């Protein structure tokens, strides 16, 4: 806690908003944590469960963080001891799901090219503005993954954008290993692919050597015993046999898993299908490599591609492979014919929809290109409301293996509810309240930064004094509001 | 190994040796002596080709041309088993004048005369001969609005037309970041001012006494503007530097301008050759600009060949390399075709001049043999 607050104080310098933000931040956080685990009920104008029809003047009951009842006011009984949020003028929606982001971290990219032994947990910054912006724009579940400037990055985790510590925020650890098929500066796809393949062959050689040592050891022991005339009390393998859709190493059961180099463990988990993969592709040609690597190493069925907007050209390949994708925040791409110099606009989600590829949309920032706006863009290009909403709720939820947990309002799901002033995809409606796990964590009437941005209301004592000093923390510039990943 | 390669040249050699006393070196006559050459194919320059045509020249001037042209007594007749054409002409060069061809201090200096920057002995100039180029237009490097007056020079000898063109840049090629003008509208305002009440060279240009070399700029819009500019002030001359000629051919035609087609390079290549084809369709007169020394002399023929590959008629390409270029540069009455009275600037080729696969066997400037394919010397000793 203390450390958290010192970080708040450091932030104050960063923006004339930070101070109020800090106050506002801890106000709701404290009040919220006070309520944790209690009974909570919401009475809304309409409840859009996205798991069935909309319920006019519906009620949602949340107990111990989970939804215990959803239904019409007359059919659902609100426990006498529940705290009630009575907002008949608002509409209730499940919180939106950010399928993949590298925001909210101290620094998104580790300089080591192959670093499967790292965990974003150690880099997530609970007080990053990013998480606050998530609440403003209705995002209640975030899959934080290592940045795309790597070959194999850290293992990521799913969090809720609320909590003073990473533990409080945690929804699901080890949500996947980040892989990038696209080269960093000064390198090419050839060397990127080389390093990527080397990582897996490296793992394989390592395991084979372990097994070989064990085998040689056993054989030697047997011969020694024969020589000495002892009966060899043969003990079986203490380890676990390797199982993978890709390659396996014979006799790994001889090796206790504890003896596997811990730097390689997560990679082995990936190959054995215990950890999913999020593979970034910056160009259509990278998709081929991504699928090749995933297939050869047996984790294709646990792979999600994180695509640059240019990758729409590889849609057929992706459809055949049957993997799902997270789309870039740029939804309209302009392609130029090199011969005629003619320009064409391609609406990328349209391509993936047509090929029947499950896709999730992603945010670029907290307002003009947040999930709600991206979904709206899809409707502008002919998607139905259901299709558009699915791409920011249920589809990403299933990608994270959280179907029924988040993305819809059904009994048993975590109590993440948005209360909006109207259609959440409309540019003129707002997220008024956000409830996460049955705790009220956002109240727009108390959101100073939004008020400042939308109404130009300058809170007392926070008037800007000339140019803002830039905060330097251990010699590095901190990521800003929308600290991107690439 | 050796013999195989020499096939194409030997014919020429033996013939020469047979008819002429002494090795070909002696065949090249001193000033004043007459010489006759019979070539399998003689490109007159107007597009016609004379089979086994004879050209006779004396005192550096052509005295006879034709199939059965009479060869005066005592005049050596060289049999050439190949093609003969007038020397090639490149239309916008800085060969031997790098750093001398542009005055950075002033944007407008019409009085500057490029002829004074010409160094006929410069190696970059001599190299042109190896590719059969005998005359070129020396022009200022882009970077000024009005860079000066371009001159037509003969390789290795003298300036043959001092005031060929007034060089004008209407597009961004005339801009610099640290001296007026820095903007297109700025340069246009300045040029309009000069032409509003034209004096000196500008008056000459408006009256049509002095042709202009108009840099068409980089974008299609700039080229279009350059053409409009020429029309507005009734300027005559040729458009250079543009790579977007194809789309604008009709406009160029309407403005009565000629064109110097820029050097062919892998990147701009496609547009250049498409431009050439379009221009010939719109029958706009055009020649080729090599851009020496920044480009290799061989690029002149290579560009022509690329245009032919893209559909340009070889005859038109041949004229563009010689007579049309001469006419555009205002020296059609001196060089560019094999006609009586014109300078004996001749090139002997192993094959068709527009085929990059043909070798330059020998080059004559004003009747003097100034270049011979080197392997002839090698033959001397085997």
């Amino acid at each position: 806690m203390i450390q958290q607050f010192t970080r708040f104080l450091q932030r104050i310098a960063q923006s004339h908003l930070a101070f109020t933000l800090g106050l506002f931040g801890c106000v709701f956080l404290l009040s919220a944590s006070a309520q944790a685990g209690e009974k909570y009920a919401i009475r809304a104008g309409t409840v859009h469960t996205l798991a069935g029809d909309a319920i006019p003047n519906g009620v949602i009951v949340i107990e111990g963080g989970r939804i215990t009842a959803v239904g019409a006011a007359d059919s659902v009984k609100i426990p006498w001891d529940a705290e009630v949020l009575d907002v008949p003028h608002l509409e209730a929606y499940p919180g939106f799901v950010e399928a993949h982001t590298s925001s909210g971290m101290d620094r998104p990219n580790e300089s080591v090219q192959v670093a499967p032994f790292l965990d974003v947990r150690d880099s997530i910054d609970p007080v990053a503005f990013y998480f606050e912006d998530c609440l403003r724009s209705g995002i209640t579940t975030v899959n934080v993954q290592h940045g795309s400037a790597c070959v194999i990055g850290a293992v990521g985790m799913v969090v809720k954008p609320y909590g003073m510590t990473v533990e409080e925020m945690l929804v699901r650890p080890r949500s996947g290993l980040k892989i990038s098929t696209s080269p960093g500066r000064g390198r090419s796809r050839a060397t990127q692919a080389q390093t990527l393949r080397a990582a897996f062959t490296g793992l394989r050689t390592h395991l084979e050597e372990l097994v070989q040592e064990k085998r040689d050891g056993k054989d030697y022991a047997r011969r020694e015993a024969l020589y000495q005339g002892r009966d060899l009390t043969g003990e079986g393998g203490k380890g676990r046999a390797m199982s993978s859709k890709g390659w396996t190493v014979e006799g790994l059961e001889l090796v206790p898993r504890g003896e596997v180099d811990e730097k390689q463990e997560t990679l082995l988990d990936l190959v054995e299908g215990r950890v999913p993969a999020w593979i970034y592709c910056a160009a259509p040609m990278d998709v081929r490599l991504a699928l090749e690597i995933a297939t050869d190493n047996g984790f294709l069925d646990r792979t999600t591609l994180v695509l640059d907007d240019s990758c729409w050209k590889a849609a057929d390949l992706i459809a055949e492979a049957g993997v799902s994708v997270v789309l870039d925040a740029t939804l309209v791409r302009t392609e130029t014919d090199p011969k005629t110099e003619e320009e064409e606009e391609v609406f990328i989600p349209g391509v993936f929809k047509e090929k029947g590829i499950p896709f999730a949309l992603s945010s670029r920032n907290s307002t003009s290109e947040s999930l709600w706006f991206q979904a709206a863009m899809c409707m502008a290009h002919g998607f139905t409301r259901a299709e558009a909403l699915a791409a920011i709720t249920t589809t990403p939820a299933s990608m994270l293996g959280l179907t029924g947990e988040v993305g819809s309002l059904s009994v048993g799901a975590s109590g993440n509810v948005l209360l909006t002033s109207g259609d959440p995809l409309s540019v003129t409606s707002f997220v008024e309240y956000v409830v996460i796990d049955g705790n009220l964590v956002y109240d727009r009437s108390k959101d100073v930064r939004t008020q400042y941005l939308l109404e130009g209301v300058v809170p007392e004592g926070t008037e800007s004094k000339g140019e803002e000093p830039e905060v330097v923390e251990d010699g590095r510039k901190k990521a800003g509001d929308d600290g991107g990943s690439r | 190994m050796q013999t195989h390669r020499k096939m194409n040249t030997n014919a020429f050699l033996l013939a020469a040796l047979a008819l002429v006393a002494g090795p070909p070196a002696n065949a090249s006559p001193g000033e004043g002596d007459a010489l006759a050459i019979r070539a399998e194919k003689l490109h007159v320059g107007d597009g016609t080709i004379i089979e086994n045509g004879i050209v006779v020249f004396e005192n550096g001037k052509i005295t006879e041309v034709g199939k059965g042209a009479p060869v005066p007594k005592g005049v050596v007749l060289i049999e050439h088993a190949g093609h003969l054409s007038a020397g090639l002409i490149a239309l916008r060069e800085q060969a031997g004048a790098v750093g001398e061809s542009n005055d950075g201090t002033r944007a407008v200096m019409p009085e500057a005369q490029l002829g004074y920057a010409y160094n006929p002995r410069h190696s970059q100039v001599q190299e042109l001969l190896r590719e059969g180029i005998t005359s070129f237009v020396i022009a200022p490097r882009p970077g000024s609005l009005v860079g000066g007056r371009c001159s037509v020079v003969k390789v290795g000898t003298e300036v043959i037309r001092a005031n060929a063109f007034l060089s004008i840049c209407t597009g961004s090629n005339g801009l610099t970041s640290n001296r007026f003008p820095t903007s297109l509208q700025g340069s246009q305002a300045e040029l309009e001012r000069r032409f509003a009440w034209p004096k000196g060279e500008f008056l000459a240009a408006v009256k049509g006494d002095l042709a202009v070399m108009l840099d068409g700029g980089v974008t299609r819009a700039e080229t279009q503007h350059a053409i409009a500019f020429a029309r507005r002030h009734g300027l005559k001359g040729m458009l250079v530097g543009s790579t977007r000629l194809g789309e604008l051919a009709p406009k160029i035609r309407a403005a009565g301008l000629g064109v110097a087609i820029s050097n062919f390079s892998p990147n701009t290549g496609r547009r250049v050759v498409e431009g050439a084809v379009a221009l010939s369709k719109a029958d706009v007169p055009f020649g080729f600009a090599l851009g020496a020394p920044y480009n290799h002399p061989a690029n002149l023929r290579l560009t022509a060949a690329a245009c032919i590959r893209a559909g340009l008629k070889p005859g038109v390409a041949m004229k563009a390399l010689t007579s049309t270029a001469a006419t555009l540069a205002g020296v059609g009455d001196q060089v560019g075709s094999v006609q009586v009275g014109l300078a004996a600037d001749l090139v002997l080729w192993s094959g068709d001049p527009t085929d990059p696969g043909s070798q330059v066997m020998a080059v004559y400037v004003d009747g003097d043999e100034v270049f011979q394919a080197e392997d002839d010397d090698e033959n001397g000793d085997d």
Partner: protein
Amino acid sequence: MILTPMLQAACLTLCLPTFQQAPADGAEVKAERASAAAEVTVQPAAPAAADLRIHAGRVYTGTGEILKNALIEVRDGKISSLRPGRSAPEGVLQVKAVTAGMIDLSARLNTGFSSVEQVTEVQPHLDVAGSVNLYDKRFARLARTGVTTILINPLDRNVIGGRGVAVKTHGPMEIEARRLSSRAILRGAIGTEPSSANHPAFGRPTDFFSRRPTTRMGVEWEWRKAFFDAVAATRLPEKDFPGSAELRAALAGERTLMIQAWTTQDIRTAVYLDEEMQREGFGDLDLVIDAAAEAWKEPAILVRNGTSVVLPPHSPGGRVGDGAFFSWNTAKLLVDEGLTVCLSAHGAGPGPSSLGSQAGFAMRGGLTFDQALASVTSAPAALLGMADRLGAVAEGMDADLALWSGRPFASTSRVVGVVIDGAVVVDPR
């Protein structure tokens, strides 16, 4: 210049969407990717009655009224008739909604550094038209987002950059033919941008950038000097300089003066300049402030002087150029104060960066639909002095139309078709 319908069709086949000849196989390409691409095809030979007929579920005329099931007829590039309550005849273009084509007074569609003459800070006599590249793809991109008219200004690297030129985003490929006959707008800037290239002489080799101004103060000084000299020149001919007439025209209010000023301090400077000119009896500037991001901080100054503003595009965090903070309710605030407010996109991007989206964001900031519509159509038309031709859907007006898939400016709808001077530049079918 008015194109005849046939010419328009011809010009379309030639020009769409890059204004360059599209060969046959280009067409195949489109066919192949129709699914993914925003289709751009050519309006077939129109029925004899009118050059073009469009049936719209709703026409937002821009005069406050909404015509349902209206039939729009176009002849010779003008709207020849507009009748509500009609059923759609055979083969007419059918769309959900129609507004007047949008107008962006700060599209920033110049050719960069070659669009401003920096030999001296004050170049009122130069016209940016000379540097415009009509073959620039951004014209077509703008058209695709429903922007049909733009004002092109020189890059703001001078204190007074010169005259801007207003053009349609599609039409003849000669700038003089494209130029809209409107009172030209004189462009200048206050703030850090105009002085950014300048530096003191010492240290570096001296070129003409070693000069004043190097500060905001210097910029302001250049402005006042320019106007005082222009006035002085009427009495002392030897003091005359190129463009002084332009400045006097601005003082006389015959030329609109558009000044870029992001921050509140620069907005003040601009208004004070105008007020000083009035005090001196030099005249009264017809002042428009472009990129007036911080106008929300001190609207009173603008109100008192009746200054019109063009607002920059909204930014997610609120931070915009010159260190200014642009709050999303600025448009609302100023419109309610009775000022003329225009929106701008500073570019030609699709989606959230388009002018239509900016109108939507202004509505998020509180603007009503009608106010938002005005801020991208009639208001800028008025500032161009072309309210009689542009900015509304009415008989006799230019046939510049944006065709929408749903309610205009809603994030769930977009521009699916565009008509400029009666030519279908983007076909919704």
